[in-house]
């Protein structure tokens, strides 16, 4: 493998991996505050991409771009917040706490059905804001670098939020011990809804910034969801560091697998990594070992 090939696989792998990492982080925010895995994450990210396709002018100036970005991200915040209301509602009165599996997947199905009704199964192509960057003579879409930056941004922001804001501190408390949090008078439902909203912010920015390199169509959400999820499990569910590391690993590895073994073995290789990690470290690389049960 020559140096330019290596560079290409690394840069693009990390760029794809950033998408998985961002999906992983949006999983984390919600799962830490409520134990719910939002299986609509993939489709919600795609939704942001579709909105970018719809509302970005053909040749966007920076201001137009920023305004559309703001509108889309705000929309996703509200949308995912409302999704949170729907998801938490049946959990109040049920014995088995599994209804979120259905409610989140149902939202995913509904959103992608709407995208399908609008656009059929064809892909939506969103033009890049910045020209491609040359890496060792190979032109690389700028969106990959923006995505890596975005992942770093959210990693730092979420960390800061958890340490320095009241809502963030409450969220950390709830993540550590839900019952203790309740006992301490934290409005748990509201905190959980905030978490949904923030995950919407992460997904909205990801779908918007990544739109030029994300395959945006009605059916592709589930693929991104599963890749992001696999990355997160490898890195450690609940840990944002795990999401970033797992995302990078999965991104680079599947690029390498496509190069070395062929495109259809991407998922197989990723699954091999997943199973290896789970067998030797079930909680994932940066996951916390299960707390004492006895």
């Amino acid at each position, binding site marked *: 493998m020559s140096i330019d090939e290596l560079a290409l696989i690394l840069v693009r792998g990390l760029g794809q991996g950033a998408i998985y990492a961002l999906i992983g982080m949006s999983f984390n925010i919600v799962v830490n505050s409520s134990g719910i*895995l939002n299986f609509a994450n993939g489709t919600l990210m795609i939704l942001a991409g579709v909105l970018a396709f719809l509302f970005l002018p053909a040749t966007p100036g920076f201001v137009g771009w920023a305004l559309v970005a703001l509108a889309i991200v705000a929309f996703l915040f509200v949308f995912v917040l409302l999704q949170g209301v*729907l998801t938490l*509602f*049946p*959990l*109040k*009165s*049920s*014995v*088995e706490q*599994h*209804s979120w*599996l*259905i*409610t989140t*997947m*149902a*939202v*995913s*199905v*509904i959103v*992608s*059905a*709407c995208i*399908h*009704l609008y656009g059929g199964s064809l892909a939506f192509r969103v033009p890049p804001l910045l020209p491609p960057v040359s890496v060792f003579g190979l032109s690389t879409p700028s969106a990959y670098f923006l995505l890596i930056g975005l992942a770093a941004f959210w990693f730092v922001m979420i960390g800061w939020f958890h340490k320095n804001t009241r809502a963030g501190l409450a969220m950390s408390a709830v993540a550590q011990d839900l019952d203790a949090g309740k006992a301490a008078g934290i409005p748990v439902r509201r905190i959980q809804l905030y978490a949904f909203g923030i995950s919407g912010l992460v997904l909205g920015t990801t779908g918007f910034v990544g739109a030029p390199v994300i395959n945006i169509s009605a059916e592709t959400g*589930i693929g991104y969801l*599963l890749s992001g*999820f*696999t990355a997160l*499990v490898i890195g450690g*569910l609940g840990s944002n560091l795990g999401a970033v590391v797992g995302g990078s690993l999965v991104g680079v590895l599947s690029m390498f697998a496509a190069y070395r073994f062929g495109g*259809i*073995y991407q*998922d*197989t290789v*990723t*699954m091999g990594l*997943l*199973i290896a990690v*789970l*067998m030797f470290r*079930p*909680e994932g690389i940066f996951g916390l070992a299960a707390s004492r*049960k*006895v």
Partner: protein
Amino acid sequence: MSQNSQLASADRSPVQGLRLPSMVWIGILAIAASILVPGALGNQYWSYTFTLVTLYIIVAVMQNMLVSEAGQMSFGQGAIFGIAAVTTAVMIGLHGQPFWFSAIGGLIAGLVLGGLFAAPALRVQGYYLGFVTLSAALVFPQLLIALDSITGGVNGVPAFVMSLSTPLYGTITPLSLLAILAMAAALIFHGILPHTVLGRRMIIVSNSPEAAQALGIHPGTIRSIAFLIAAFGTAVAGVLYVPLVGFVGPTAFRVDFSIFFFLAVIVGGQGKLLGPLIGVWLLYLVPNVLLADFSHYRLLIYGAVALVVMLAFPDGVVGTVSSFIAARRGGASKVAISLNDAFDHDGKDVQADDRAEPNGAVLISVQEARKSFGNAVALGGASLTVKEGTIHGLVGPNGSGKTSMLNTISGFMTLDSGTVKLFGRVVTGLAPWRRTRMGLGRTFQTPRIFDRLSIWENVQIGREGYGRGGDAGRSSKLEVFAAKWRDQDPSLLPHGQRRLLEILRVMESDAPLILLDEPAGGLSTEERTELSRLLVHFRDRLGKTILLVEHDLSMVWNVADEITVMETGTIAASGLPENIKSNPKVRALFTGGRDA
């Protein structure tokens, strides 16, 4: 009065375990009708649809068993179904083998994949296991395409079995009868399972792996068995799929096919016998049959239906409806268990001179045990010796390492250094369930009571512990209460009583060595007195050795032969109660506390 009627009703059905819930018969009738009625009328389309749906129900019933009894998240059942179907079809269609031989091949393939799923189940569980199985389901169709020289690849394999698909009457075929039979077997199995030793063990393992270990059950084994049973049932359905559809292709087994079965269980009602039936009917028939003419809006309506069902029935359709009916019928009567029930029903007090002289053999010996979690030191070189036939009290302030010591002895905590000996044998690295089988019993600070089992079954599992499940010859000391407790729901017991239930369970296990973790918590004064008497009874009549961790110091000083005091992970003092009492160090520890 209510007690009398309960006794009466229990008398009517003395042979427990063979009663089939009426839901099983309702389910079998409904499914048989769904296939036979259109079949008799000669309707090909409905026959095909309901036979297919019935195969899916078999898979969902197995999934239901996995989720609710065994507590295992598998999102990969579709891959097991698929591998059984593909193997069968390849053997028939590409190699010209007869159906029965191909069917065996399909079953074996399904079991092998089920075994592969079970392998990680020995290490991981819950949602983590779900991830492994999910990715297997994701990769499965891709591998079918990639390995086209074996599987027929993306073109799929046509396979016809004329003997099974030739109609007997109308469009009723031998195949549709087989589907009904297989489904009935699956439903009956699931109806009986919770009343068998295996079913109870699954419930214990899924609810509390540590309690399972404390009962001498190896959780991994039970999980593997559950997976293999589920794989078998699923593979049967997969094999029957081949003659029904006549064609097997990889896109039939995409990842959403696997997830479908899990969703059907949740939508129908997890743990409910009829849940899979309702779930599959709703999730398959609504989008694919009712909405067949609205293909553009099919997915949209499907999603909306699933969402609305979950909002209206948070526990699944059957789950929410049945708890609504139960609520309408009014609450169950209060139950209580008394320790007087549990021992010495003739009410005779134990006399001090009845006591057998302890022979002084050392049953527990912990030497220089050290364990720390990061900076926090749980045990800092603590040693403990417990002699046979004694009650040994272990006291100390919160966080002093009492429970860590119990966990060290029962094997739930592995030491950084130090040795543990039980019955004179070094067991430092031994798994908890193996220690249980040596004759060690224990209770937990939070009692491990299983609400899915009756009070009687909760006691009985103690007797089934450490490999004694088949010991029918030995009758329970509590047999007289069997009838009364058999139908009672332990979830109605107050917290303190749940502890007593756990103590009774340990007593039933016949373990000579018992560790009790704060057994008096939540008990009333009278109950504490009863408990003290029970402990003495255990020691003197039954010859048991007890290590007692307890905050109620007066109780400890009343019953204990020896006392060890712990402080910040080390032993502050150890010896006879009267010596400890006068130890100034100990007095300092408990100043302001209860009277020592």
